[in-house]
């Protein structure tokens, strides 16, 4: 069976400097793959190349065995691929509920229903479930821009799941989230993975978070994969320790 996501010999250079230098890996349905590495190791560039927001210099990305090079982010969304960003991304002037409806509505109905159909696109129940699941009920009608950083982060993650994606690329979901919220976020991601059969690729600097969430971890340094394996093996890998400590 073809891997859900397959990256083959991906390279990306900026003015002769290689940010991603021939990275290959596969992600199978149901996995939670962690992608870690020191700052500047090419993790976010790799995400952007996978999602078509940067054109790779060479190499290939496949979904279900099918090349997706040149596809627009909105087309990838329709293939069931979602993402969150390293920096917070919400629609600040819209309410929490409207942010969630927006995140799911592009999969529903045609042009006519977008103009004259129900404004919730039949997604109110799904939005309510997501609001309850991420414990945002008290804030549902608040402007997203008025929420705390941690609450906006939860909303950001919740939005990524509104359209029922098969694969979600999470870019530092734990960044800036307080420890109490972090535990809840990890449990929710695990629950979605188990019950919703979503597959995740997670970039994260918080080692405790990534080690307790992911089933497999890839380590990038200077644009190359230097280690791959189960969390416990990665924790004790000499090459990984050297890459992080610079020894």
């Amino acid at each position: 069976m073809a891997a859900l996501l397959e990256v083959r010999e991906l390279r990306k250079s900026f003015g002769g400097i290689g940010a991603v230098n021939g990275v290959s890996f596969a992600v199978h349905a149901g996995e939670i793959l962690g992608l870690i590495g020191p700052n500047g190791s090419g993790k976010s560039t790799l995400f952007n190349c996978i999602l078509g927001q940067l054109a790779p210099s060479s190499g290939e990305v496949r979904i279900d065995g099918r090349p997706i090079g040149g596809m627009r982010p909105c087309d990838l969304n329709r293939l069931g691929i979602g993402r969150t960003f390293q920096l917070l991304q919400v629609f600040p002037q819209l309410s929490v509920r409207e942010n969630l409806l927006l995140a799911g509505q592009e999969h529903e109905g045609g042009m006519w229903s977008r103009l004259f159909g129900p404004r919730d696109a039949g997604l109110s129940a799904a939005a309510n479930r997501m609001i309850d699941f991420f414990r945002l009920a008290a804030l549902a009608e608040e402007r997203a821009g008025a929420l705390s950083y941690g609450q906006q982060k939860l909303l950001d993650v919740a939005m990524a799941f509104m359209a029922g994606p098969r694969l979600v690329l999470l870019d530092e979901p734990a960044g800036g989230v307080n420890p109490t919220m972090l535990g809840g976020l990890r449990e929710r991601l695990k629950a979605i993975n188990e019950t919703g059969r979503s597959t995740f690729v997670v970039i994260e600097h918080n080692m405790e978070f990534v080690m307790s969430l992911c089933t497999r971890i890839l380590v990038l340094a200077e644009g190359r994969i230097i280690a791959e394996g189960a969390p416990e093996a990665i924790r004790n890998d000499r090459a990984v320790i050297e890459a992080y400590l610079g020894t």
Partner: protein
Amino acid sequence: MLLWQTSQTINFAQGEFVMLPAFFVLAAMKFGGLSFPMAMLAGFAVSLLVLGLLFKRLVVEPVIRHGVLPLVISTIALAILMKEGVKEFYAADAQPFPAAWATTNLQVAGMVVSVQNLVIIAVAALAVAALQYFLAGTRTGRSMQATAQNPALARVLGIPVGRMVLYTFLINAGLVALASFLVSPIYLAKFTNGETLGLVAFVAAIVGGFNQVRGAIAGGLLLGVVDNFVAAYLSAQYRAAIPLFLLIAVILLRPQGLLGRVEERTV
């Protein structure tokens, strides 16, 4: 204002955009032999094509990637081109423009009220209500708001950002055509019409708040009322300076406009 919010387009030819559709209608009647209603329809369609689609494709898209300033200069050049083009190829003198409604006056509680002015107020109010409903009450409108607030996220969520921006340009073209058809019977179709209209609209938007539709409406009302009070009770000679005084005062005291929101922008 709509164009700014969805595509960071500042259009200094907006006044000329209001001037031009009236000439599309007159040209359709004069050269195409169309009746006035048919010419209005043709003028509206040509406005959508030229001031919406072609403006976006041929002016905004090639220039905006070089920054806002080149686009500002380009739209100033476009304004001059439109104005001089109409003067050169259609007429340098004011042209009568037919009214689609009665041009009589009504006596209301001892006051004389022009039917034309009432029609303008009614159509403008309807247009604003329809625009507000579209933006706030439909999924497409919500997608347009999302595009204006965070285009990168909108793309990732599957919103066709390019199409949403195109809709904004088409709505802008439709609104300027409507404005042109409303004011031209009163002010006549003149190649210079855009100068005053563009300046007043720009000042009204800044005074009211550049990021709020209701702000621009409030700004326009305030300018109109102040302008007429100054002309009636102070001096008609200074009425043209009043919008500029108001503009300076707002920029100094409340830069976001009377009803505008403070926005943070990453630079």
